[in-house]
């Protein structure tokens, strides 16, 4: 637990230290005029808000990531006991990975990695 306490202290301190730049005197937004707050478009003016239903073209890749990322959860504990358990562990993980890599191959074949 002690290392985590130190890590937590570090996380809070570094985060707050960087956040603290917000309290520099120059960081307090004075009354900016409306034109000073217009988003930058190289001299052009925006018509609409930028927040929108943003067309993410890599959504198929994101779905693939969701499933494939789970493999991490299994791999970390495997790595710890791998040498103890020996060849059997290697084979079991190889099977697991081969199954998952089939998914990548399928996705590749279907063109899911290409952006829509």
């Amino acid at each position, binding site marked *: 637990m002690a290392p985590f306490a130190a*890590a937590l*202290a570090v996380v809070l301190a570094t985060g707050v230290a960087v956040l603290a730049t917000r309290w520099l005197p*120059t960081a307090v937004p004075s009354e*900016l005029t409306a034109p000073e707050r217009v988003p930058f478009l190289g001299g052009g003016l925006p018509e609409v808000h930028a927040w929108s239903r943003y067309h993410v073209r890599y959504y198929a890749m994101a779905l693939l*990531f969701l499933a*494939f990322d789970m493999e991490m959860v299994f791999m970390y504990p495997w790595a710890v006991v791998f040498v103890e358990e020996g060849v059997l562990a290697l084979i079991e993980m190889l099977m697991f990975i081969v199954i998952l890599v089939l998914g990548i191959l399928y996705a590749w074949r279907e063109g899911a*990695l*290409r952006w829509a």
Partner: protein
Amino acid sequence: MNPVAAVGVVGGVLGAGAYALAVLDGAAARGVAGMPRRWADVVVEPARDAALLALTRRSTTERPDAQAWALAPGLLAAMAGAAVASVPLAEGFAVADVADGIVLFGAAMAVVMVGVYLHGWSANSPFPLVGGYRFIALALSYEMPLALVLIAAALPAESLSVGAIVASQAGSWNVVRQPLGLPLYLVAGMGLAFWGPLDGADGADLAGGTAAEVSGPARLAWELARRFVLVAVALMGAAVFLGGWHGPVLPGAVWMALKTLALLALTVAIGHRVARVRLERFVVVAWAVLIPLALVDVFVSGALAL
């Protein structure tokens, strides 16, 4: 380690690392551009730029998500701090020698994605928005190779602790034992810090991407936080692949510093030599080449460790 000392050590490492990175980058840029400059100027330059940013007013956009915008650089810095805390800086001297150190690193680096996306999203401005979404595509591609090469390094150590991984390199370093590891790690690490060829999120074609609308102290915070992330990546790389504190004659902490600086210099050099990569292409390469290579790295390292 007691929390105050922990904060001091990590703050010192991050600060010194980020400053060294800025100096290296400035020197490399002048070298490549062929603009000679006095060394003294190159060394002071980052401090001058930071001072100017601190004296410049922060601007804002019409209707931003102000809290999330402010949080973004803090998140990046905090996660870089967590990563640095888990790395031993010398034999037996880690700020937080967490037994699952590389999981902590992976978790911290996953949260970096949140920070960069928030930074792009919050401005409610087109270019930062596109930058934020670019970073997610990048992050979803590099995250797996990053975690896999660290797992490969953990195999011979039989532990997820970074200290144990360094200790396991007493004989030969992982950069030799697992030759695929460091190159894959560096590619992923540059993506993580959106540095050099993978800086699409903050690229010049988007007028600065997620940082296109920040000025003054907010810009300072963002530039700092981003460099903190790269320093954390280099420090972890030095420990996991370059043997950490191992080395002749000099004390371990000096070796760590030298190896970290070497990795930083390498990323800076790559940044000035390699053009920005098209993300659509990088994503395919990451899934079709980098992830399979990382898996090969894991299994070959595993077979060798048996």
